[in-house]
């Protein structure tokens, strides 16, 4: 037993040393303590880990810089509805085609967040400053953030994730479509 404890201590020490060294020299390092950022959701401000908002390729030392760029940034239900009415930009449903077929925001494109490459050809034809509002089910799902980050990585400069998503849109009884087409 004493031997096992001694071995566990050695292993734990090695892990801690390796983690500390990696924190000093690793190019892709992240802060050791979770950093939070506040985003505006429909039911008020929500505190979430900052890394979830940042572009995934911009981890580490330049966290605050990438946060300041606010691309992608959160957009409320009201703002999304305003963009919808004024026909500004495009709405993108990041859920899979089955969920999209069961119901989506009227006119929204379906680009499942796992399937962006298959839509790259169409997206390439759009100006890089096109307003893109990405959504999924609601605050519990992260597909919209994943897709928003991928769109930013593709070079789009005005990407917004609609945190309230499909649930909030339905609750407000805004226009929807229940077909597999936009």
């Amino acid at each position, binding site marked *: 037993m004493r031997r096992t404890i001694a*071995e566990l201590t050695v292993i734990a020490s*090695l*892990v801690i040393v390796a983690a500390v060294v990696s924190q000093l020299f690793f190019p892709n390092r992240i802060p050791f303590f*979770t950093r*939070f950022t506040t985003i505006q959701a429909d039911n008020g401000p929500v505190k*979430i880990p900052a890394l*979830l908002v940042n572009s995934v390729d911009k981890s580490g030392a330049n966290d605050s810089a990438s946060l300041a760029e606010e691309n992608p940034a959160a957009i409320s239900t009201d703002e999304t509805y305003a963009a919808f009415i004024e026909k500004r930009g495009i709405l993108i449903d990041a859920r899979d085609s089955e969920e999209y077929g069961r119901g989506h925001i009227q006119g929204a494109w379906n680009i499942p967040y796992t399937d962006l490459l298959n839509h790259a050809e169409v997206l390439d034809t759009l100006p890089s400053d096109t307003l893109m509002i990405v959504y999924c089910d609601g605050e*519990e799902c992260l597909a919209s953030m994943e897709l928003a980050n991928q769109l930013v990585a593709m070079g789009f400069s005005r990407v917004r994730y609609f945190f309230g998503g499909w649930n909030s849109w339905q609750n407000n009884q805004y226009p929807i479509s229940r077909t597999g087409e936009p």
Partner: protein
Amino acid sequence: MRLNPVIRHILRILLGGLFIYASLDSLWRPALFTRAIYNYHLLPDIFLHPAAILLPWVEMITGIMLIANIFPRTNAGIQAVLLMVFTIAVSIAVARGLDINCGCFSLDENGTRTTVWKIGENLLMIVLAVVVFYTTPTTGSGLSQSKLQEHR
């Protein structure tokens, strides 16, 4: 439990190699690994970064030590416990209907998802770790013990 020493060493190296391989992507892309952990919605947010930094190193260090035959029994034991924790997490995700990247080997979009198959894969790895744990001598390194047996 007795096992042919050659088979035992092969299993030990296989288990160590699997853990080293599993740690590589998460070590290199900790931000993505943080997201993978977050997606399970099991760990309080405050522990996300420490877990994303420490877990891959636990995998890497125990994997290297297992291959080098240093404290093989303890390292196999740690890996068995880790695998059990991972399996419970994946099972909860499956039960909740979450289809997320499991954060296991590849963190790419087309990486392994949380499915029943993944649970089965993990169970096989648990069996492997438990076999290595129970067949490794309790005293001395596995290598020295087998050499002792050969000398007898």
